[in-house]
């Protein structure tokens, strides 16, 4: 009774509803986009009323917000942080830089498309996206969590070789002797 398909579906629906209404955000503020997080969370736009809340550490977080460009150096840290998060976990690419490199499209040490290195669930376009756009993007994330389509963590594990190969291309020495930590 407890393990048949329909019961599992009901439980999953309730769990997805809870996941979509309690989203703990780990803002990886490397780029200029981090400046838009503050007005999103504080009294003008108040994302907490929708269930968003800042998480202190990767272990507690549900969503990683990549706010802007990623250099080769920071990609290593982002990958490490992403792997420390506990699934179900989601990634939101924030700003043009994570989609096509933005104004750094021809830079020698920034990546252009984040999706090659981590499974991104939602992109928020703009340079910079205003808090309205951020909240719209997070609402889109809520929607796909509720529909059960936000399965980036499974995608990452299934295509681990492809992701690791891409990461190795930009940081050859680091991936080979990656530090010993458990996911």
């Amino acid at each position: 009774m407890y393990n048949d398909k329909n019961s599992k579906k009901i439980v999953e629906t309730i769990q997805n509803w809870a996941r979509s209404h309690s989203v703990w955000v780990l803002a990886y503020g490397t780029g200029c986009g981090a400046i838009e997080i503050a007005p999103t969370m504080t009294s003008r736009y108040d994302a907490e009323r929708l269930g968003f809340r800042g998480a202190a550490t990767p272990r507690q977080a549900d969503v990683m917000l990549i706010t802007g460009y990623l250099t080769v150096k920071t990609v290593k840290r982002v990958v490490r942080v992403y792997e420390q998060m506990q699934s179900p976990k989601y990634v939101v690419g924030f700003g043009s830089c994570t989609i096509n490199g933005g104004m750094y499209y021809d830079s020698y040490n920034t990546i252009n498309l984040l999706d090659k290195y981590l499974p991104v669930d939602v992109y928020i376009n703009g340079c910079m996206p205003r808090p309205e756009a951020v909240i719209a993007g997070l609402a889109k994330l809520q929607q796909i969590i509720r529909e059960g389509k936000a399965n980036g963590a499974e995608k990452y594990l299934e295509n681990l070789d492809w992701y690791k190969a891409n990461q190795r291309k930009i940081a050859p020495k680091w991936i080979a002797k990656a530090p010993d930590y458990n996911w």
Partner: protein
Amino acid sequence: MEYILIKTLEAMATFILAFLVGMTYGGVVRKITGRVHNRLGPPWYQNFIDAFKLFSKTRGIHHGAMHFLGAAFLMVTSVVSLMIIPVLAPGGHAWYNSWFTNMNFNGDLIFLLYIMTFGPLGMAMGAGQTGNPNSSIGVTRGLSQMVGFEIPWVMALVALMISYKTTSVIDFMNIQRETGTWLMFANPFAFIAAVLAMLGMFRYSPFDIVGAPTELASGPVSENGGKFLFTMMSSGSVFTFAKLVLYVDLFMGGANNLVMLVVKTFLLYMIPVLYGIVSPRYRTEQAVRWFWGWPTFIGLLAILYAVMF
């Protein structure tokens, strides 16, 4: 056998009450904080959604056996102190009153003094195992702060023990019912010292040096996600409720029914919360020095008052 079954059911009723009220208080505090910040704030039931989400995380890594003991010690502390503290006055009028006086005994106040420091010690072990430097710093700070606020808190309790020559919480409740005076008026110095110690006990600003948002990344719990965090969150809520009930029992005459219990505990809870919202954070040595200043002096006055009058 029947007696044990009934006792178990009563204990479960107490626990469910503490869980619901404690979690609701957490959500209400977030709402109040939001309103003070001129925000709308999350709904009052946000903590329940958070807890359920944490519980339904599919992955939860651990760092060894001691890591489990951290959460387990916290759970044991909160549940045991809730079981020892009589939640409602036993001689009340409502039909459910006898449900909520679980395992209290003569001398439970001394036992409570011990068991309430047990959880932080367990957390220290668990946080040490995780190997995160933020956890170790948080634990060091937490134990320093505990050394700070335990002194006025113990002094307040010792003053009460000297005055009434008992160490049973039920006896204190009966004394307040018989004399008709709450102990917060009978020995005001003890109450003030205990309330000042409470500011540190609940770890809101300016004494949030353990969790220290943006500074220590939530301190001792920084390596805990998913079900670990759920355990800590729910035990923290239950423990908060238990401590509030202990204050109400000792100083405000206990409560005869659930409505009065919620009103009294909520009013008392608002002291650290509202003081915390508008305060910045102390450093560790400032916090300890603060507790060993006026609160300890008022605690000494309470003992003198108890000895003389």
